[in-house]
């Protein structure tokens, strides 16, 4: 059965999207990305010669654009203007690549999205021909506005970036899922495999994560766990779960043909 994730007209086998930050070295980054099976990977745009060794290979040599769909982000941007400038640089850096992850943050403590700036940046970027996958709060009204602007994927948080707190408000995600035509991808907050599975069981089209893998004791093993969780959650969603029957048990084995009692 063909059950690919379609974003901006392009088809992907994997519904797990991963970040490339916080790994101890490029070797671990590469091993984790490979174990995750992800085809879309996020990267950040930073000033040259800030913490980079000029003799080391660049990230793009380790994870080449020919093999992965790179998703440059605007992490660290607190205004629409900075986010737009960052993605214009990304487009130049990646030879005209237009698929991007927009995130405009509200403050450095919570990293909660500033939706006012996010909406403004999304309008500019869409007008300039970018295909915008947008990180946002789990507010269904804002999500709809972002879709109406022309974003190609809506990416609500499950909980705060890097917190690993899991899905704090599945009801809001449900409201977003009911209203969106474009893919909904949970971005941020996943802590472990069950969180990813729950997101997929809710009907999300994908999950994007970084710290849950990079911050695990064994990142490569966790990357593999996340791959399986996303696949399992997706299958469970498609299979359609049984109805919950509160206070009403139902035996799994036949009730007829049970051997007779010895008590009179």
């Amino acid at each position, binding site marked *: 059965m063909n059950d690919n994730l379609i974003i901006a007209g392009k088809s992907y086998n994997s519904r797990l999207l991963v*970040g*490339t*930050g*916080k*790994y101890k070295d490029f070797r671990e*980054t590469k091993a984790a990305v490979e174990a995750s099976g992800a085809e879309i990977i*996020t*990267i*950040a*745009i*930073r*000033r*040259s*010669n*800030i913490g*980079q060794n*000029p003799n080391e290979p*660049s*990230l*793009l040599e380790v994870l080449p654009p020919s093999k992965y769909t*790179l998703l*440059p*982000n605007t*992490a660290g941007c607190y205004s629409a203007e900075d986010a737009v*400038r960052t993605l*214009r*640089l*990304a487009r*130049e*850096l*990646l030879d005209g690549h237009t698929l991007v992850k927009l995130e405009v943050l509200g403050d450095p403590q919570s990293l909660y999205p500033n939706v006012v700036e996010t909406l403004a940046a999304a309008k500019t970027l869409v007008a300039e021909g970018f295909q915008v996958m947008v990180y946002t709060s789990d507010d269904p009204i804002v999500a709809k506005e972002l879709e109406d602007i022309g974003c190609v994927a809506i990416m609500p948080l499950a909980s705060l*970036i*890097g917190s690993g707190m899991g899905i704090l408000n599945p009801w809001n995600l449900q409201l977003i899922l009911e209203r969106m035509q474009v893919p909904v991808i949970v971005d941020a907050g996943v802590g472990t495999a069950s969180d990813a599975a729950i997101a997929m069981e809710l009907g999300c089209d994908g999950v994007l*994560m*970084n*710290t849950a893998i*990079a911050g695990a004791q064994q990142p490569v093993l966790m990357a593999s766990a996340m791959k399986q969780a996303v696949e399992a959650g997706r299958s469970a969603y498609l299979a359609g779960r049984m109805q919950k029957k509160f206070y009403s048990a139902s035996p799994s084995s036949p009730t007829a043909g049970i051997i007779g009692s010895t008590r009179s």
Partner: protein
Amino acid sequence: MKVITVIVNGATRQIPDSTSVAALVEEMALAGKRIALERNGEIVPRSRFAAQQLADGDKLEVVVAVGGG
């Protein structure tokens, strides 16, 4: 030789007048590397590095791809 002052990635830099963007990139040991460059808020395409001459007070951002989420 006349010297001009430009700001590259937030740091002040003295360079000879009529230095091209390409020459600055070379001096930064970034020639041939995958970078993108913004001059006073506007992207300078790689194809125009050689043709563009820097001016006193220019603000440049030179960026690369790094790991991120």
